[in-house]
């Protein structure tokens, strides 16, 4: 089966995490493209010039914090249609609820075990590769 070429915006400040994600992505996805942003502001300025298929973002960031960043994405008419997947370390019920209220498409926890993490990442990519995008 041939997967679509996904254009992903990844918002992650930790270099190790970026490497981990890249390493985890299975060989079956040949032509994916990851654009990296270290924080919310950087992400917003990138999105001004080029749109992406999905956004994968950590929730733990500051100024803007994760929720603020999501809000500004979802209140922007040009950007609000882009699916957002949260990939973060910890969770609480309040955050999860707020994120879904804002219209996220998924909430994943970075598993400690690398094997578990790999399964999660590849499932997500597989799923979104099957979707159609504008």
């Amino acid at each position, binding site marked *: 089966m041939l997967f679509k070429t996904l254009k992903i915006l990844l918002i992650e400040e930790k270099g*190790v*995490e970026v490497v981990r994600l890249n390493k985890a992505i299975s060989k079956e996805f040949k032509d994916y493209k990851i654009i990296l942003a270290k924080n919310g502001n950087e992400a917003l300025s990138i999105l001004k010039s080029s749109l992406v298929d999905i956004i994968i973002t950590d929730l*733990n960031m500051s100024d803007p914090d994760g929720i603020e960043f999501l809000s500004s994405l979802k209140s922007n008419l040009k950007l609000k249609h882009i699916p957002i997947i949260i990939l*973060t*370390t*910890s969770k*609480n019920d309040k955050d999860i609820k707020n994120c879904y209220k804002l219209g996220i498409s998924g909430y994943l926890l970075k598993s*400690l*075990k*690398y094997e578990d993490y790999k399964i999660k990442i590849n499932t997500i990519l597989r799923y979104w590769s099957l979707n159609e995008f504008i």
Partner: protein
Amino acid sequence: MTEKEILQRALERQKKARRIAEQILEHKSLELYNTAQELKKVNHKLKHLVEEKNSQLKGVFETINDAYFVMDLDGVILKMNDLSKSFFGYNLKHETVNVLNLIYKEDSVIKSYAELVDKGHIYDYNTRIITKSKEVKWVRINASVMHDTANKAKAIQVVVRDITVQREKKISLDIINNIAKSILGQENIYEMAWLISSEVANYLETNDCVIYLVDNETHSLEQIAAYGAKISKDRGIINKINLPIGKGIVGNVAKTGKYQIIKDTSNDKRYVLDNELRLSEITVPIISEGKVIGVIDAEHKEKNYFKKEHLTTLENIAYLVAVQFKSALNLRERKKAEKENTDLLKKLERSNQELQEYAHIVSHDLKSPLRSIAALTSWIKTDNITAFDEASLQNFKDLDLTLETMDTLITDILTYASLDAKVSEDKSVDLDTLIRNLINVLYVPENISINILNKLPVIIGDKTKFQQLFLNLIGNAIKFSNKEKGVITIDVKDYNSFYKFSIKDNGIGIQKNHFNSIFKIFQSLKKGKNSSGIGLSIVKKIVSIYKGEIWLESKIEKGTTFYFTIKKL
């Protein structure tokens, strides 16, 4: 017709008329006789009645329960009954008494006397009189004018009833009622004291009354309210005195808890001169729960002014005041405590929220590096897999396990810290479904069977919390199973106001001396894989959130049963 015939006819007519007239006369005289007889009878009766009345009156005069006297129109008493004699203290045999001299000088009776003469009677007239022994008494007077046969006013008969006691009782009752009404529900003891001081001064007909409050810290008495010259325009007390307990008459009463009536303060060394010398003083303690909490003190410029009745009334007032003071003080304390409580709650809520946010951040900040370490070590391992020997590979395994344990620990601490947060509204939770789903998700080794004896109820609460609760208990039961065939039994019993759940295993068992400590945070008897030692603390906290209890029964090597209750909402 002849003339003779005419005359004869006329004669006939005359005869007839006379006959009729005679008949009428006869009839009338009979009537007259009858009337006369009747009158005679009535007269006789009347005479009898008068005699009767006279003797009755005589009887009344002698046996009447009230003082009774007859006076002439100038007020000179002509005759008085025995009660009158003893009441007024005069004996007509030895002295002449004029009623006008008996009347209390401040009570004008001229108007009422005029009314008496004018109307012929006066009913229920209240006034004060002075007896021979100079006692002032309140009396109720009924009087009527007696006339002679020519209907000329001759004398006045007077019935006098002593209403002193009755009046005092009523006044005493009135003032107590008044005070009760005005201080009831009053929270401010100063406001209360002002009311009382003026009511008491009014009642005692004096212009000096002061209320003192005992200050336990300084061991003294503070004037908190006053009536009379001691009040300034803005209701402050002029020259406020602070009296050490034991000093003066007031200080003495506060010390002993015994009332004082001073007949002549100029003879009492304890008397503390305030703004003016007054010769009579009455001082009553306000006692609550056996302790003097205040003093009511009144003075009067005349000597020997205060009476036993005053004391009774003041003591009643003091009792009332004690009760109300006490409840006002209690109310004040309670309000203060309530406010402190509310503040504390708010603070607690805030710090709770802060704690949760803090826990959340800490959890993230601790977990992130764990992930990095895990990733980095696994890369080192895979990149150099051929270079490591068995021992090193075992070390990598241990490293992974340690990281996992640490991760679980962080997760559990966060869970524990977040339990108080009410994230979602309480809903009905079908425990039967919830636990069956839970068992499906859990890793249950094949040698362990889980049985649910009775259908589990639907209860109101937070689904996540119930999940955590059962997950921990069932998880423990699985973790500490050491038998060839592990059996875990879940049951519930429905009580009136709560459910009692039990989770029984046939595992390793717990020593009795650990029964309490296992619920404390970071206490794990056997820290195995993925065990943080917080699980039972989480369980206990959830149970207490639902107002339940948790306890256990256990025998080493036989197994353990955890019981807990959940209150029905």
